[in-house]
């Protein structure tokens, strides 16, 4: 198991009262699997995804990553785990607007203090993989939405993570582009053996999963 979640609870404190965004979630994720998380809006999908590696601190419960408990880890330890093992892809692409394609992709390597030449080499290589070799000096606003999401995929991939977490990566894309992105994720999963956890509300996307999780009101639903 690459990831085990036991009795995960996340409550948001709001002045209207407590919100149980996640209510006693337990899941086991096998290494190399393609997990899809579906559920209605507000069911807690994003909260679950971002809780896994500490971007949201869960209220209670335990998370094991590579058989190590990471729920009590410090901010720095969690940051280092994300830096080393995790790639994120978000619906809004989360690119830095004043950095070029290749600069955006190099950030994870820069954070790891990888040598400059190697950064460029590896970033160029993954950009080739997502078909953007001829767009490396473009700014995000000079790219189409589909291209922007491919930059985000390249960035999630460049440091050879063991897990990629994608939160509705096709939410802003038309069906044809969505399929293209989903095919990339599937290719990454199959050829590189990277575990993918994909949050989606598209039934088509959900079909890609070999482990399907459905959430309703913060609980697992059959």
């Amino acid at each position: 198991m690459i990831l085990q979640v036991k009795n995960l609870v996340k409550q948001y404190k709001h002045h209207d009262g407590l919100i149980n965004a996640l209510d006693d979630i337990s899941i086991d994720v096998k290494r190399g699997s393609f997990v899809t998380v579906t559920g209605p809006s507000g069911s807690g999908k994003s909260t679950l995804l971002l809780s896994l590696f500490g971007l949201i601190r869960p209220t209670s419960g335990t998370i094991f990553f590579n058989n190590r408990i990471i729920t009590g880890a410090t901010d720095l330890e969690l940051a280092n785990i994300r830096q080393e093992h995790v790639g994120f892809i978000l619906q809004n692409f989360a690119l830095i607007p004043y950095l070029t394609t290749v600069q955006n992709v190099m950030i994870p390597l820069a954070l790891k203090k990888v040598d400059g030449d190697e950064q460029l080499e590896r970033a160029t290589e993954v950009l080739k993989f997502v078909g953007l070799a001829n767009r490396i000096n473009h700014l995000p606003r000079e790219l189409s939405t589909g291209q922007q999401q491919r930059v985000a995929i390249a960035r999630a991939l460049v440091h050879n993570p063991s897990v990629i977490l994608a939160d509705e990566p096709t939410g802003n894309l038309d069906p044809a582009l969505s399929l293209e992105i989903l095919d990339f994720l599937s290719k990454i999963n199959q050829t590189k053996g990277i575990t993918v956890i994909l949050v989606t509300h598209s039934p088509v996307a959900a079909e890609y999963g070999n482990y399907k999780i459905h959430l309703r009101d913060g609980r697992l639903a059959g």
Partner: protein
Amino acid sequence: MNVFKIVWLELLNRKSQFISGILSITLGIAVIVAIQSISTVSRENVARKLDNLGANILVLPQGASIDDYYTSDIDAPTIPGEYVERILNSTLKGVDNMSPKLTRRVKVGENTIVLTGILPKSEIASKPLWQGIGLIGTEVKTACAPAAPQESLKYLDERLQRKVVDTLQKNECLLGYQAAKRLNLKEKETLSVLNTELTVVRILPETGTVDDDRVFAHLTTVQAMTGIPDQISAIEIMGCCHAISEGLLSKLRNILPDTRITTINQIVSTQIETNRLMNKVSLVFLIIIFFVGSVSMGNFMWANVNERRKEIGILRMMGASKKIIYQLFIYKSIVLGVVGGIAGFVLGTLAGVFLGPFLADMAVRPVYLYLLWSLLLSVIIGIAGAVIPASMAAKIDPHTNLQEA
């Protein structure tokens, strides 16, 4: 790529923001640099004046004013000439050079001139005791005045004049430029004054000072002519600065009764006062600029942090620690500080160079040392303003800011 490069790319991409971020620091530093450049030149001017005057201590009779020193009336008070020997025979240290003078305002026909008795070098040579001290004539530099660039100042004529003084005979005189004009005399002609005939050996170049109206003659001659033998109206002393600050003046007062002893510093004190005032203004500005600069930098950084919430979230998502986020904003403030400081130095120096001649009637040069101080100040201001916003940035919750479109 280094993560800190992100800061540069952001700033270069948002140039108007960049400029508004450094504006208050730049203007503040510019004001200080401008004031300081002007007052540096002014300080140098004072030093040069001291240097060219030669003497920096004046011994005057009690009750005499500085004006008397320049234009003594016939009954102006005097002091015994023997005071010179008294100083020489004392154990006082720091008296490098002395020159006794007797000054009297006298009439030559219709004209009033200032007759000044001085001691030529040949006279000094006859007194072995004085020789070692090199009384007059040798080109002396004040011990404390910084070596000013030797520009051809009018004051230098005074040294020229001293050279002639070296060999002045008892029946000779030197004429100031205006005096010569008014008396209508040329070199080698004879001046008749107080029943004495004096040969004009030289007409001194115009200096624009009271010296232009003077007639210089041998001290003993002037004493005899005016009927006040053995009396002098002033002793100019070249004193060493350290000695002056260690109380040379009061020691002199002890051995020279009924005298008024002042330093040239007091004579050029208006200029020194102005410099002091400028320094005070600078200091006040410094304090104001520190606070205003820090607050405005803080304000800028605060806005910047809020604007960059999403990027902070993105970086944290990719594994940047809180510490890195903090460092990025501190680094940004250092960049703004350095750029703001350099711009402020350049602006202030230009202002000094262009405004100096109008405001202070002085040619102002760039003082490159201020670049260092500008940088130091602006970087400190930058960091001081950024500390709080940077730690806020580090605490920003990554996930709520990540989801924004």
